[in-house]
């Protein structure tokens, strides 16, 4: 009992930070007198910012309704990009010393351009990594972009970023990712009863906090998890899939789990996708970070990349076998082009394998939870009583 209160207390503290990364960043800045650099999803290597002595904060969607941002970005953009622009337009990015990105999503680039327009004094830097992983021209191009990032971040922070500093940062982030993967592993094996809301807090806080500080907390937490296992209560095991760039609303996750579900695994960005891959060892840290970019897509394929040799659907089916998940909830952020474009490929594979799934489109403005609940219940019922569901489907 006492242990579970300690665990909940730790997670509650992290949840506060995850809910207001700007406040944490200001505190960090005051304490450490360093720069705070906003970085954007989904492939930015935070190590390079950390190595410059700055705090990398992976920009999050916030809950506020979109107001001034409407005049900068059309309404038919994903919630993440609209929120980002609105945060810029409503003065919420004032504490950031710069905004850096590497990803090529058409909506994200439009949004960051709008931020640059709105905040002309803020350094905004795009080191675009080519999204096609197959061509031999991509690897050197990505290496050059990482070198350019190193240069630009060094200028911003007034330091020269050494190889040793990057190696040190790589080790720090690998340690952090390793601990988070341990939590995932315990969850897949049914050794902890950690809800999706809580899991999201662990990942989200790792995206915005000082990595060493986060690792210290996580070390304590993992030790508690290992020492005091708990059996999850939900009967149907599900996998959450998709949801790029930003976190699905915790209320949605609560609702899913309230239907007799245990979420045992996921490939959402604010989830396993973010922590799945370590930067490999190697003498040249720029080369190692370049390799990381490629490894991430081989480990957990993403439809924002263009790669012939990997398939997200293959990964999904395999990971279901590993976790024993019985079905999938596909979470698509409304207007997310790369996800909408690829979804039929996922659907085809899930049909082929006889894996039930449900698609939920999420919106910044909120969700009709009651209506969605009926659909989740139908999915759960179909999994529990497959023969009845099949008979109903055939009727």
């Amino acid at each position, binding site marked *: 009992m006492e242990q579970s209160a300690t665990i909940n207390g730790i997670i509650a503290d992290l949840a506060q930070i995850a809910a207001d990364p700007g406040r944490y960043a200001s505190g960090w800045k005051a304490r450490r007198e360093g720069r705070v650099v906003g970085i954007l999803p989904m492939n930015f290597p935070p190590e390079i910012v950390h190595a410059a002595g700055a705090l990398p904060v992976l920009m999050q969607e916030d809950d506020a309704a979109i107001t001034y941002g409407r005049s900068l970005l059309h309404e038919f953009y994903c919630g993440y990009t609209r929120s980002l622009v609105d945060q810029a337009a409503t003065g919420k990015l004032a504490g950031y010393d710069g905004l850096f990105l590497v990803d090529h999503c*058409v909506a994200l680039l439009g949004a960051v351009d709008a931020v640059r*327009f709105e905040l002309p004094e803020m350094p905004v830097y*795009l080191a675009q990594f080519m999204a*096609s992983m197959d061509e*031999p*021209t991509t690897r050197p191009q990505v290496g050059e972009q990482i070198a350019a990032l190193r240069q*630009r971040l060094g200028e911003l922070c007034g330091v020269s970023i050494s190889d040793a500093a990057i190696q040190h940062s790589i080790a720090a982030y690998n340690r952090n990712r390793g601990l988070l993967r341990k939590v995932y592993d315990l969850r897949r094996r049914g050794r902890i009863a950690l809800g999706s809301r809580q899991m999201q807090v662990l990942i989200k806080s790792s995206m915005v906090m000082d990595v060493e500080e986060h690792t210290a907390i996580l070390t304590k937490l993992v030790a508690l998890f290992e020492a005091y296992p708990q059996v999850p209560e939900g009967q149907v095991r599900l996998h959450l899939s998709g949801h790029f760039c930003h976190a699905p609303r915790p209320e949605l996750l609560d609702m899913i789990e309230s239907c007799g579900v245990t979420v045992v695994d996921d490939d959402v960005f604010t989830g396993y996708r973010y922590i799945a891959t370590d930067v490999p060892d190697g003498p040249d840290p720029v080369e190692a970070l370049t390799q990381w970019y490629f490894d991430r897509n081989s480990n957990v394929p993403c439809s924002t990349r263009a790669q012939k040799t990997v398939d997200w659907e293959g990964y999904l089916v395999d990971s279901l076998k590993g976790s024993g998940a019985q079905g999938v909830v596909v979470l698509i952020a409304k207007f997310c082009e*790369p996800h909408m474009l690829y*979804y039929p490929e996922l659907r085809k594979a899930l049909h082929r394998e006889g894996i039930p799934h449900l698609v939920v489109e999420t919106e910044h403005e909120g969700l009709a939870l009651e209506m969605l609940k009926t659909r989740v219940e139908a999915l759960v019922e179909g999994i529990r009583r497959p023969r009845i569901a099949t008979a109903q489907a055939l009727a």
Partner: protein
Amino acid sequence: MSVITEATKPGQARTAPNANRLVSTRAGGKLVKDYWDNLFTARDRGATVVWYNGAAINPILQAAGVEWCHGEAFGARLAAMHLEQPAQLAGEAYGYINELCSYARTTLGCALLTKQEATAKIEMDGLPGVPDKEVLASRLPPPDLFVNAYAGCSTGQQWDEVSYRVFDKELPFFKVSYPLLWGNRPDAGYLRGEEWDNASKFVASQLHGLIEFLEHQTGNRFDWEGLRESMHYIKRAAQLRIEALELCKARPTPAVFWDWVASIAPINFLPGNQALVDYFAAVKAEIEDRLRDGVSSLPNERYRLAFDGIMNWNKVGWLANKFAEHDAAVVCGRYTHNSFWHEPQLIDEDDPILGMAQHYLLCPFNHSARNLAEQVLRDCETYGIDGIVFHATRTCRSATNGQLLLAKMAQARGMQTMFFEGDVADESFYKDEVLQNRLEAMLETIDVQRGR
């Protein structure tokens, strides 16, 4: 303001005018139809067929001895002919959500229908009224190879990842990647700065890679002389097109944006040859004749507007008349004036690869808002524009990126702006009353501004 715009004599209403469209562009329609009809028989003729999207790499494909099918162009053609439904229904049955780029889902729908014709092995939900062979959407020849060369838009690139999968990942596939012309450095700008130079070289090197790939896949030796020759014709045609565009600085203008829209297909994917040059020579000659004879595009040009955004292919004729009814000449547009071999001086006929790479980078959707403003606002000045009409293209974020910023920059220069909703190939997003109301409001504001 109403559709009956003015009285010619007191008490007598005049009928709303239609746009007086150029006659010479009809020949382009014939060239394009012949091109597609010929392509439909490619397999029967034993030709190798490349499906590609994005930049106009057709001269490279031509010199590689293959036939080329530009996916977007076919999607646009279907929408312009109001024949997009079967392809879009096929896409929907396959699982595409209607907020997804309608070009992509239309063309992927065609891919599904083509594949179905070939193998009958596509998984789709109950597809109502599955079209037979006679339906245009299902007539594309199946591909032998894929090339993706989409600048600016991530969807454009990912779309062929899916085409490749629809055809079971069995076909060879090459991708050309482009950096966005973003401008990190202070020296960056339109056609200038270190980033522009580096990006140009980066893309040029990939084009050499593409040529090697094509040689390897087809077993044909690449015809460099053929490439130089077709680029010679394309450069000449492009020069004629630019000269013709510039003649429209005249007031009233002899031709409008909608005439240039009708000329997109020829310059975008027809073979570089004398016929292409003849086509643009005829367009230019007709404009010169109009200027000499005092014939204008609209009988009562009262407003001069620019059109920003990708085309609304379902509505080209409708929009042309809608603006004409309001005596509003749409004189220039990003999609027509800042695209399609529009900087022909960059092409070195003896060594065309770098200039080609640069044009591919200059896709009108591959710019930051700052870069975009440099071009669009310059054109507004050149053509004496009173206001900009922004087509808020629901499913094309690439075309809508930067639009709201561009509008603010234009307003800061005293120009009027308006937005209307529509889409590149999905009619359901077009709202006529929104266009009507906003257009009338903008024109009234222009009147007020003039009265001051």
